[in-house]
């Protein structure tokens, strides 16, 4: 019974995606903001005083359509094609162990209503990177600072060779230290709590999560962002994801205070009491 309901819901959602894709063709262009980075003349990768690539700037990734609208997202894709940039590979599914995959499927069956983000919890790494809100990188001597519009969160990441501290408390964003490998900034993140999802609905992890982020500024306009999530408690092998970060030269960070008027909390409670699919679906 539960399985049939899940299939019906999933099929309905897939149809919705296809419908939305068709609708997206009819929506108007946005009216203000930066031009697509790809439309500018080619410029070389900027360098910091120490000769390393300078990652500083305001960047976006992930759901371009949500952040900057259909027309500009399409223009960016066209610029990618014109520049010969290969499209990203299809995201690989998370290599969960059977028990963890069962937990993920339970969350999917509950339509994502348990998402910590919907309750305004701080997103972890790497999910905060792929939120459709911009973030800023400030690269300076001995450290890199990441400022996220989402939750006005920050990460101060030493690049001076120091190790992780020995008094880490489990946290949403974990503890980060970084090093340079050639032109790539490699960020090592540990010390997570278990209160975040990694990428989408039900992408759980344990406090053994170990994330490695690799930031490579492969053009003036882009950073190739590769992330490896290793968690022996839930994965059979490390989970890899690749994203493109896009420079937004005319952007500025704004305040995003999630909890201001989060009516979803009350609606969720109502749905959990009244929606048969949610009442019957197991809560993991």
């Amino acid at each position, binding site marked *: 019974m539960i399985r049939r309901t899940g299939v019906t819901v999933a099929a309905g959602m897939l149809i919705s995606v296809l419908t939305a894709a068709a*609708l997206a063709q009819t929506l108007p262009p946005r009216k203000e903001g930066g031009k697509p980075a790809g439309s500018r003349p080619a410029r070389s990768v900027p360098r910091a005083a120490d000769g390393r690539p300078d990652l500083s700037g305001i960047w976006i990734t992930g759901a371009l359509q949500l952040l900057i609208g259909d027309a500009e997202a399409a223009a960016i894709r066209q610029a990618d094609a014109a520049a010969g940039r290969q499209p990203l590979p299809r995201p690989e599914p998370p290599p969960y162990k059977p028990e963890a995959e069962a937990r993920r499927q339970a969350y999917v069956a509950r339509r994502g209503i348990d998402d910590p983000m919907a309750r305004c919890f701080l997103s972890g790494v790497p999910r905060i990177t792929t939120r459709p809100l911009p973030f800023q990188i400030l690269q300076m001597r001995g450290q890199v600072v990441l400022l996220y519009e989402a939750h006005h969160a920050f990460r101060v990441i030493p690049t001076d060779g120091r190790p992780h501290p020995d008094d880490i408390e489990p946290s949403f964003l974990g503890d980060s230290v970084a090093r340079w490998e050639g032109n790539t900034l490699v960020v090592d993140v540990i010390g997570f709590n278990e209160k975040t999802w990694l990428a989408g609905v039900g992408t759980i992890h344990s406090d053994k999560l170990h994330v490695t982020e690799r930031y490579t500024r492969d053009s003036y306009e882009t950073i190739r962002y590769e992330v490896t999530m290793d968690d022996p408690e839930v994965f059979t092998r490390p989970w890899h994801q690749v994203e493109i970060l896009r420079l937004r030269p005319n952007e500025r960070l704004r305040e995003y205070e999630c909890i201001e008027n989060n009516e979803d909390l009350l609606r969720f409670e109502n749905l959990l009491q009244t929606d048969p699919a949610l009442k019957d679906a197991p809560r993991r």
Partner: protein
Amino acid sequence: MKALALAASILLGTGALFAHHSFAAEYDGTKPVTVTGTVAKVDWTNPHIHFYVDVTDEAGVVTQWKFEGYPPNMLVRQGWKRDVTMRPGDVVTVFGWRARTDPNLGASREVTFANGSKLASGPPAGTGGQ
């Protein structure tokens, strides 16, 4: 059917990118709705805006619809201006999808204004991006 379910699961279960919550949690992407009416109120707040539209049927009965939209930061990046783009008294047509339970609640996708211009107001169904 299994293949369809698997495709949807991968697409929505791990690949979807949300700003705040899953679309499917509250809304039904198989139930589109379009209404025309007069804006009664706009709540320009995070994590979503909400706006209220008074819709009059053929019998003259007024029903107030409530629509959810993108958060303010995403709206301004797509051309909206607070207290300018949509104000109480404006006549608008809203396209979106119905909520699963509340009969007069919807997830808005696009607003058409009296002068015929259109702006995106929320994410496509299924991407869950609000």
